[in-house]
């Protein structure tokens, strides 16, 4: 808006105005691009992406997250006008893709901005639209690639700070190591652990940890999409608990309904430990790395000591 107001003015006047505005304490970044003193406005569609933007951008970004309420199901989220305003002002956006947050693309298309950089995690990873499981952040390969893309785009927006962003990237990559090591340790100590889940949120991590998810994909997809599962699948899932065929039950705290609750009851009744998994980063107290590490540790505790971690 300020840019449009200023468009007719001479360059000198713009500079003068910007100076005046800056002196008033307002960063003029949205009007005239990023200044070395300015702060980059960034948005993460899900708070785990926002968290990583914040870790790379440090004090030179102001980052907000669209989805961060641990009680909502992002699959059925509807965007509000305030979200649209945030997105149209943003210079860097990170979104998941794979149909998980389609509303982001819709809003971006409605407020075009050639200078805005959009990182679509699906595209960054080169995944096809037909990828069945959209919960990419549980995949150990995802965040290093995303963090790299964030570093590249932030450096493009503010070249003077590029060394700072690169240093943060190196720190971030280093800080992922404990999580990756925990996954490797789990895989070595408990190979082919049979597990059950409500829906596929943590499937990428379960795969990396070498577990065998006994819950049929159709049931996971039905619960994720909020449609009625087939009775055959419900019976099969019930038998996983009553027959003690699985060592741990991964329960998505954000995608729950009457059927997931009855699975939860049955799992507890049969002494199957439960581990809570999430669509968005549980806050406060976690960043992306510590959240992921906590999930693997909870998984290991469940399998080794039969201890439930229903909520992180």
């Amino acid at each position, binding site marked *: 808006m300020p840019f449009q107001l200023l468009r007719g003015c001479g360059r000198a006047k713009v500079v003068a105005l910007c100076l005046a505005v800056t002196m008033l304490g307002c960063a003029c970044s949205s009007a005239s691009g990023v200044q070395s003193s300015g702060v980059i406005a960034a948005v993460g569609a899900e708070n785990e992406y926002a968290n990583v933007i914040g870790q790379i951008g440090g004090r030179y970004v102001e980052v907000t997250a669209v989805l961060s309420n641990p009680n909502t*199901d992002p699959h059925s989220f509807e965007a509000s006008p305030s979200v649209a305003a945030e997105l149209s002002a943003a210079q860097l956006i990170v979104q998941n893709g794979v149909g998980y947050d389609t509303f982001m693309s819709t809003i971006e298309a409605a407020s075009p901005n050639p200078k805005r950089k959009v990182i679509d995690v699906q595209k960054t990873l080169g995944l096809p639209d037909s990828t069945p499981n959209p919960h990419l952040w549980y995949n150990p390969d995802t965040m290093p690639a995303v963090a790299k893309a964030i570093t590249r785009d932030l450096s493009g927006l503010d070249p003077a700070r590029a060394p700072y962003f690169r240093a943060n990237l190196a720190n971030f990559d280093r800080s992922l190591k404990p999580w990756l090591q925990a996954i490797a340790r789990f895989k070595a100590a408990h190979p082919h652990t049979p597990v059950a889940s409500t829906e596929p949120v943590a499937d990428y991590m379960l795969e990396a940890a070498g577990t065998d998810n006994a819950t049929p994909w*159709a049931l996971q997809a039905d619960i994720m999409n*909020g449609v*009625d599962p087939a009775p055959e699948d419900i*019976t099969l899932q019930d038998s996983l608990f009553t027959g003690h065929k699985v060592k741990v039950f991964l329960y998505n*705290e954000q995608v729950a309904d*009457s059927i997931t609750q009855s699975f939860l009851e049955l799992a507890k009744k049969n002494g199957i430990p439960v581990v809570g998994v999430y669509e968005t980063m549980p806050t406060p107290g976690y960043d992306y790395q510590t959240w992921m590490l906590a999930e693997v540790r909870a998984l290991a505790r469940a399998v080794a000591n039969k201890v439930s971690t229903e909520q992180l």
Partner: protein
Amino acid sequence: MTTVGAILNGIFEPGFFTSGPVRVALVVGGAVSLVSAVVGVFTVVRGQSFAGHSLGDLGTTGGSGAFLVGANPLWGFVTFAIIGAGAMELFGARRPRGRDMATGIVLGAGLGIAALFLYLGTTESNTTGATITILFGSIFVIHASMIPVFALLSGLALAIVGLLYRPLLLSAVSQDIASARGVPVRAVGILYLLAMAVAVSLSCVTIGAILSTAVLIGPAAAALRMTKRPGLAIAWAAVIGLAVTWLGILLAYDSYYWPPAGRGWPVSFFVVALILVVYLLADLASREKARRAGAQGVASRKFPTGTAGRTQPSLPPVLGAE
């Protein structure tokens, strides 16, 4: 013996009778379809199909509200259907011409609130799939502990129409005659709306709010095509309702083995499709019967005689045939 076994295995795919969700669905679905069919005969005869449909839609408000606060959706459906029935009655259900308008206005307001509840539910709380569950039902995810509740509510609705059997039929024929004979027409109407509200909210949970009309009206309409005697029509409606629901559950179970493999089709689809088929067949049969009767020169049954004097009252021709 083995061929019979093979055929039976083809009809009932493995695990049908031992599956927990199927057993609950057969019991609950059976009770609900029975009640809906019986109550539905009166709904059709009294010309209150629109009110019946609206009660289901109003149940949506309650169902979505229940999701929002984390209660069992059945209680939401029942509460709001009863409130809706009361509101319809209050806003002019007495005058037949004002009835549809009052129903429509209450319906619109209810659906608006449902839209708000669903928005809040999906953006502020944890309610995956609430919209689809409310609109299209979830017969396979009903908890076995809810069976007594379903049985109790079914019994309540059946008791009301059983006790009011004659006054209900009489006031359907003519409100004036009924009043003249000392029938408290308004009280009967209110109690009937209550029974309909309970029946509709039960079918909202099993088959879905927007499809509940089908199980309310469908079996009753087909039965009234076959006979005009109310007792027989009720019996036929009950049989049809029970048959389509159980067959629908069986087909939904078997459809797990149809393409796309491992993704059973919804029960609601099968039940509603079967109702349409049964209605079309009943309609065809009744036309054929009328045509043959006409060809043989038998007096047309358009004007049944002696309605008042017979122990088994016949339904008014217009309501029964149309």
